[in-house]
């Protein structure tokens, strides 16, 4: 076994363990806290005791806790998410379209911002002290520190309400009834609704990439190897390219981590813009105490982060020729 394989095996094992623990935590939070998912239904008077018992046994809630735990683990780890209590549909058929909606919004936004703001960050890091540097730092500091729903509200007020350029809410017009993903996402109507949340998401993510790239380049600028590159007669752009290449790794890893977080959606963004994504669905499910939906959604989110973490570690170990894969320095 090479050192890299060993490292990979260890990381994998840790990730699997983490998944198990995370899933258990979700179970504990959902089952042990007071309140029952059917209280809402009972108090609303829609069900009698008989029906409640039937439903309880259907969801296995009448079994002892440990049996519930075992069957829960068994089903959730095999991606059997069961039925949504309130929507009376398989959980997956509720979540799938929502997840797609979220990804279609955030993945392009993340990629765009990673490319644009990292490039900008490298550029301003190279031209340290310029007006552009100050300006970009202030604006991205504002954008990344302000909660995303507030930025969203500002944008809605300006672009949707006052300039009336784009709609403020939803993913498509009420009248539209497209069939299938292609028709949904390739329409002009969709693009109209897409612009605003997309822009806000791009701006919200931009700060970290910009600073990461800028700090990396600033740090490399004073380095000895760049001095040698300069002595070799490389042009400014060539030097910047080398400084940028040397700061790529943290940006790549950060990108992987962010990508994992995308499955959580930007909950607040989705709520403000009425985007039917997974984050907004989860808030609704929590409000309505729809257990199976909540646990499935949270599980998917946790799993995505764990996988992204793993990917980031492996990326780092794989792409950095100098990093040693056994954790500490080489012996």
């Amino acid at each position, binding site marked *: 076994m090479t050192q890299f394989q060993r490292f990979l095996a260890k990381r994998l094992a*840790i990730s699997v*363990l*983490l*998944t198990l*623990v*995370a899933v258990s*935590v*979700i179970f504990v*939070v*959902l089952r042990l*806290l*007071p*309140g029952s998912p059917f209280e809402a239904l009972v108090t609303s008077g829609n069900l009698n005791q008989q029906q409640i018992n039937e439903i309880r046994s259907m969801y296995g809630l009448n079994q002892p806790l440990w049996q519930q735990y075992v069957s829960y683990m068994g089903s959730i780890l095999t991606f059997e998410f069961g039925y949504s209590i309130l929507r009376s549909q398989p959980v997956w058929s509720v979540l799938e379209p929502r997840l797609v909606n979220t990804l279609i919004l955030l993945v392009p936004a993340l990629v765009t911002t990673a490319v644009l703001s990292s490039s900008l960050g490298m550029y301003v890091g190279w031209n*340290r*002290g310029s007006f552009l540097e100050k300006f970009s*730092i*202030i604006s991205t*500091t*504002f954008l*990344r*520190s*302000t*909660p995303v*729903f*507030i*930025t969203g*509200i*500002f944008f*809605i*007020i300006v672009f949707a*309400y006052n300039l009336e350029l784009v709609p403020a809410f939803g993913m498509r017009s009420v009248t539209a009834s497209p069939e299938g993903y292609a028709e949904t996402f390739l329409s002009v109507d969709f693009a109209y609704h897409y612009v605003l949340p997309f822009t806000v998401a791009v701006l919200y993510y931009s700060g970290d990439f910009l600073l990461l790239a800028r*700090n990396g380049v*600033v*740090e490399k*600028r*004073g380095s000895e190897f760049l001095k040698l590159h300069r002595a070799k007669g490389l042009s400014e752009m060539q030097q910047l390219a080398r400084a940028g290449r040397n700061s790529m790794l943290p940006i790549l890893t950060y990108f992987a981590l962010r990508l994992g*977080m995308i499955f*959580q959606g930007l*909950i*607040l963004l989705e*709520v*403000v813009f009425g985007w039917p994504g997974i*984050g907004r669905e*989860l*808030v609704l499910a*929590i*409000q309505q*105490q729809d257990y199976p939906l*909540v646990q499935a*959604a*949270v599980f998917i*989110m*946790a799993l995505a*982060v*764990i996988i992204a*973490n793993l990917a980031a570690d492996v990326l780092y170990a794989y792409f950095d020729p100098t990093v040693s894969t056994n954790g500490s320095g080489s012996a």
Partner: protein
Amino acid sequence: MSTETKPKAELYKRVDRIQSLVRDQFAFLRQDRLAFAGVLVVGAFVFTGVFGPLLAPHDPIEYTVRDQAGSILRLSGPTGAAVLGTTAYGKDVLSQFLAGARPTLIVGLFGGLGTGAIGFLVGLVSGYYGGWVDEVLMRLTDLTFSLPFMPMALLLLTFVTPNIWLMTAIIAGFLWKMPARVVRSEVLSVRERTFVKSARASGASDFRTMFYHVGPNVLPIGFLYTAYGVAWAIAAQASLAFLGFGDPTMTSWGRMLRQVFESGNMRIAWWWVFPPAIGIAAVTTSVFLIGRAYEEVINPEIQTDQ
């Protein structure tokens, strides 16, 4: 620790040191105009947080603004009766704004302090001891990373009636992972420095080495992340309140925004939207700007020639 026979002189010296420390910090912040503006904003925010409820002309929830005829003044723009206009329920926006600063301040301050303190301690212990201690603590941070913050917080808050202290605890309980990781990696490099080895060689205990030698040298990073923690906590509190999971008995800026949003009056009632929205944005941005000014100084890698 020290059994000095001159406690008074020692005390004076200490006061002196603190004074000059404060003066130094202030002088430093004066240099960075942005950070200085941030300090002013944060200062104003703290003032409002402490005295806001006393300054508020009316009770933010009980009092209803009425016109001369005695009917409730709903969704009125800024007028003499209500300087910043009224809400859809006829409440005074200015009073709500002034009173709403307090929960924001409490959660921000204590959430940030909690985040910084827990993260600092975990990072310090984890990085200093290494081995299985490190392994356990770092896997714990991985776990808090993998559990999505917002949904988990919402879940917890559905079962328990939210109050600001609970929210503070939940926020700190989730956010400590950030400083923990950064402090740990910092500790890892400080731990290798010669003076730490030298402390061990002169017989210093683990406790002493950790808190007298390693700790002070990573403290700046701890402070920095405490500052960031304050901004995160404010943002998180506002977000939770906006989703309707705030303390129902208290007016906060996030809750004000939720009410505008829910009542569907965002399009017209700009006077109701802007005070809390700008308040939150200004405070979080200011805290970050101050933090950044310090980061430029602390991070040895980016403090090369200007």
